[in-house]
């Protein structure tokens, strides 16, 4: 059964006198000050909780400390300060031996550049974690083959990694991580090295797998679109600090600061937003007044646009009980697309509401 992962005030400082540096960070010193003293703060005061079965995405540009943060979660890097708890066990308290045990049974990892062992066949790669656990060969191969089949690689067991395409290699990497039945899956920019089409496939497959496996997943990426697609919740990192944690829509609609705002500029909002996020909730309660098409809060933005095009008035959004929770006027849809939430200005030319007509025709 999956378990909850908690990170509590994690710090990681490389270089000289790290403990002292953490103390100064706590007192409000910034990264640049530390750097002049020869210490590099990679992660500063990171705290978050990942619920069982949740995909938690950490997003940030390179150098933002996201990879360092990930490696503290399974003890590959020892936090300078703070705690990591997984399933109630404090990993920071464990010795080398204990950490190895946890890594081999409870936490597995998928890497950006696949990190498959070139001297092992696909099956032996997938079964590596089991081999470390000391699982007997027969069972190991059976479970490795199952994991490979799960990742769509049935029939490739006897191939060698260098015979596979990038996407297939990463499936092997995923199978290797899944084969151990670890509860926590750490994915370090796992799809970043793949070309866009394959990346889409892999993302879909991960979502598909997650529906049945319900692992706790921490996924690192620098691609906000990917973060929005995969993440139940997203943490945005900058310069070692987590600047915002929230759902994709939270971040899109209510960016915590200019940095996040500038980040989300390029995001294809239509893929992320749903009716629930864009609706005007001032009008709520009661039944719809007509029998026109309606939407639900989870209706995706693009579908909502389609409905809006067919309906002459604002689209009503109903909850499961058929009660109206809001309406979406067509103008509001356009506003969200254009990131404009101000009021409409009056037009000085005759023939108003032209924009709405155009929209309708489109």
């Amino acid at each position, binding site marked *: 059964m999956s378990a909850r992962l908690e990170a509590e005030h994690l710090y990681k400082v490389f270089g000289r006198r790290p403990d002292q540096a953490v103390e100064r960070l706590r007192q409000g010193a910034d990264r640049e000050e530390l750097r002049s003293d020869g210490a590099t703060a990679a992660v500063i005061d990171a705290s978050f909780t990942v619920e069982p079965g949740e995909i938690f995405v950490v997003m940030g540009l390179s150098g933002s400390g996201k990879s360092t943060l990930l490696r503290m979660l*399974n003890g*590959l890097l020892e936090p300078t300060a703070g705690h990591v708890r997984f399933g109630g066990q404090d990993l920071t308290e464990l010795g080398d031996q204990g*950490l*190895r*045990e*946890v*890594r*081999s*049974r409870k*936490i*597995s*990892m998928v*890497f950006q*550049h696949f*990190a498959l*062992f*070139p*001297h*092992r066949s696909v099956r032996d790669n997938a079964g*590596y*974690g089991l081999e*470390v*656990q000391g699982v007997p060969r027969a069972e190991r191969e059976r479970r490795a083959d199952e994991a490979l089949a799960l990742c769509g690689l049935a029939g490739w067991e006897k191939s*060698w990694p*260098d015979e596979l395409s990038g996407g297939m290699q990463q499936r092997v990497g995923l199978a*290797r991580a899944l084969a*151990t039945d670890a509860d926590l899956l*750490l994915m370090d920019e796992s799809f970043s090295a793949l070309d866009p089409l394959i990346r889409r496939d892999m993302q879909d497959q991960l979502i598909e797998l997650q529906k049945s496996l319900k692992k706790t997943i921490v996924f690192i990426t620098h691609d906000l679109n990917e973060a929005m697609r995969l993440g139940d919740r997203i943490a945005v990192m900058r310069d070692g600090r987590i600047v915002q944690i929230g759902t994709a829509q939270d971040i899109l609609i209510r960016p915590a600061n200019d940095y996040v705002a500038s980040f989300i500029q390029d995001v294809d909002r239509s893929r992320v937003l749903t009716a629930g996020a864009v609706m005007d909730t001032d009008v709520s309660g009661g039944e719809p007044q007509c029998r026109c098409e309606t939407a639900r809060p989870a209706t995706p933005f693009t579908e909502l646009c389609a409905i809006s095009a067919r309906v002459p008035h604002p689209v009503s959004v109903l909850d499961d009980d058929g009660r109206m929770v809001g309406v979406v006027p067509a103008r509001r849809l356009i506003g969200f697309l254009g990131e404009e939430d101000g009021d409409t200005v009056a037009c000085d030319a005759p023939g108003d509401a032209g924009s709405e007509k155009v929209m309708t025709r489109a």
Partner: protein
Amino acid sequence: MPRIPLGTWVNDAVDWLLHHVAWLFDFFKAVFTGTYEGINAVLQAPEPLLLIGIFAVIAFWLRGTVAGVLTFLGFAFIHSMDLWENAMVTLALVLVATIIALVVSVPVGIWAARSDRVSGVVRPVLDFMQTLPAMIYLIPAILFFGTGASAGIVATLIFALAPGVRMTELGIRQVDKDLVEAAEAFGTTPRNTLLRVQLPLALPTVMAGVNQVIMLGLSMAAIAGMVGTGGLGGDVNEAIGQLNVGLGSEAGVAIVILAIYLDRMTNALGTQVSPLGRRAAARARSLQGLKIWSYRPRPAVAVIGVVALALVAGGMGVFGSNGGSAAVAGDKNVGQGKKITIGYIPWDEGVASTFLWKEILEQRGYEVEAKQFEAGPLYTSLAQGTVDFQTDAWLPTTHEQYWKKYGDRLEDFGAWYDETSLELAVPAYMKDIDSLDDLKGKADLFGGRITGIESSAGIMSLLKNQVMGEYGIDKEYRVVDSSTPAMLAELKRAYAKQEPVLVTLWSPHWAYSDYDLKKLEDPKGVWGEGDGVHTVARQGFADDDPVVGGWLKNFSMTEEQLTSLEAEINQAGKGGQQDAVRTWLKDHPGLVEKLAPIAAEPAAAPAEAKRPLNVAWFPWDECIAVTHLWKNVLEQRGYKLNLKQMEVGPVYTGLAGGDLDLNFDAWLPHAQKNYWEKSKDNLTDLGTWYEPTSLEVAVPSYVKDVTSLEDLKGKADLFDGKIIGIEAGTGQMSLLHNKVLPGYGLDKEYKVVDGSTPAMLAELKRSYAKKKPVAVVLWSPHWAYSEYELTKLKDDKKLFGEGNTIRTVANKKFPEQYPQLTEWIKNFRMSEDELGSLESVIKKHGQGHEADAVTAWLKDHPDMVGRMTPR
């Protein structure tokens, strides 16, 4: 700047090491020579063509048909050049050095890869080892390890170690960090990360290192020829010394063939052992399809091929040796295959004498079985007649009870050794303790301990009950009961550290020959008279076989013989007794004839001839001549000579160290003055056999108007302002620099070019061929004078000094070891005519036929043998 006496420090350090850690070097020496001899024996044993076949099959397996065929041709070529034996010596040397280098370098490389600090320490050490000129550690290697294989191995090792360490470190560090992290992320232990991820992936690089180790080892093995390791390096050295480009290139090509083979095989092996390499190779092959030239048998087939050939080779070896013993020459085949059974008690002297007789009797055509018994059963078997004789009966005291019981059914052939005694012994470095009386009051020195043997032994009860009481030391000393091996181990340990130690011992015992020990005198005679070691046979044996009976009745051994044989056997270890006897017999030529004489036996050799003489020679004409002359003459007198070709420096070191016995070509007092001065404390000068010699500057005769050193003045242009010299630092060169040139006022005009003798001769040859003026440093006698028309420049001011004389130099102990030979050598003279004619006969016969040449020359000089070695 004050002078920093680094040289002095190094000298002191070397001296210190020599005195204090000699045991360690001895240990290494034993390991090195042991491994080397083992591998060499394996390589030398089979018929060359069969071994070539095995090599070819290996190549066939690893690289394919073409490689297999080429390997066969290449090695067959070496064989056809008569260099096979030497090539295998070199191969054995390189293999041993490689194995040891890998055992050391791979772990060090791994360590260095995992720790930056270790890497930082190791790196400069490697640089040091790799760049320090070889000669600098070749000489200390001789000091520590003696001449021969082990010194060569050490030098090779030092040189070849570095790439092994470096490539291992590099290989491991090169392994993708992601992969190591992945292994860690799955909870792999560091040890398994190393074994399952890092090493397999580093293997191609590590194998490249192995390859480098072998290549460097091979190149070093050639240089090591200078210290008498032999092999192809020896051939190269010899050829260079004589400017024999032909022989040099033969040996050189043989080295190249070996090198290419080893290189390609290790490369291919690298592919075979690393999973990645195997994959790549398999893929390449599948692309290529099956072609006969690149066809490679599967490993199983190859192994079967190698094993089959090895079996045939082994089988031939076995049959060969059987054939050898069956083919005991007619007149020596006394036994005609008759069976004799010898029984023995596993005591050192029993084993030694039994296997000695086993070997002797087998040489005489008997079929001998040696059976080991406890004392009681042995006497029983003898009495029953199932054993023919035994050589280890301690009579009359120790085996008294058995004799009483079975004596009437046994025959006593008498004592072959009667200097037995029981005693306490201390190392010779314990001054002031010479007798049992001296032990009193010295208990502190020995920690109050006498290291004993098995408490049940007779010597122990005698010691405890009588000896100690009689000398009044039973209060002071405690006898530590242990075992014979433990006592010997304790002795060895204490001896190595030069610590005081007091042990119970008996004679004969090999410990007396291995260590310098003192038997404590027993003025009161408490230990009693010693037994004699008797040969005892079953009744009627002497009647059944009067010949062997006669031999056994006359059998006797001296203490020196017995202890050295015991030591030899002890070294060989279990199972190697008879081989040890054979080796020992080689050092004691003529002994078989003495112990088991056959009618019409040639006159016995003088006693001193038993040990072979190690004679070093330089590849210079007069030296080749005189050395082979002596070899011929002395072998007629029953001596055995091992000739070793070496450089001047190593010869003096070897002579001083006792590894070498003789060198006939010491140019003294000038030319080799430096070497002599350094080692003269440990050397003896056995006088001159040829004088006068001279040192000079010579020019070709076609250079007119230059007949004396004075004539050189103002002619610098003619000679390009150069005088071609030889090795810097030789006596002659210093003379030229410091006296001759300034003396004639030539030092401004001429520059002396330092180089080497071969280089000088090469330059002379080149200039002579072009009729170009050239001035070279030369000396007489020298073959260059018979080869080219040269003018010795007159030295009117006698600045080169009186000529050298050619003298015989030996180890300091030589005169006492070889009184007869010393006298002969001291009286030995050769005239210019004799030397010249001998040299020219040798030259005519050509390289490799020196012995024939000497024989031919001796026919023309019938008085020579008598003159050199008067009876």
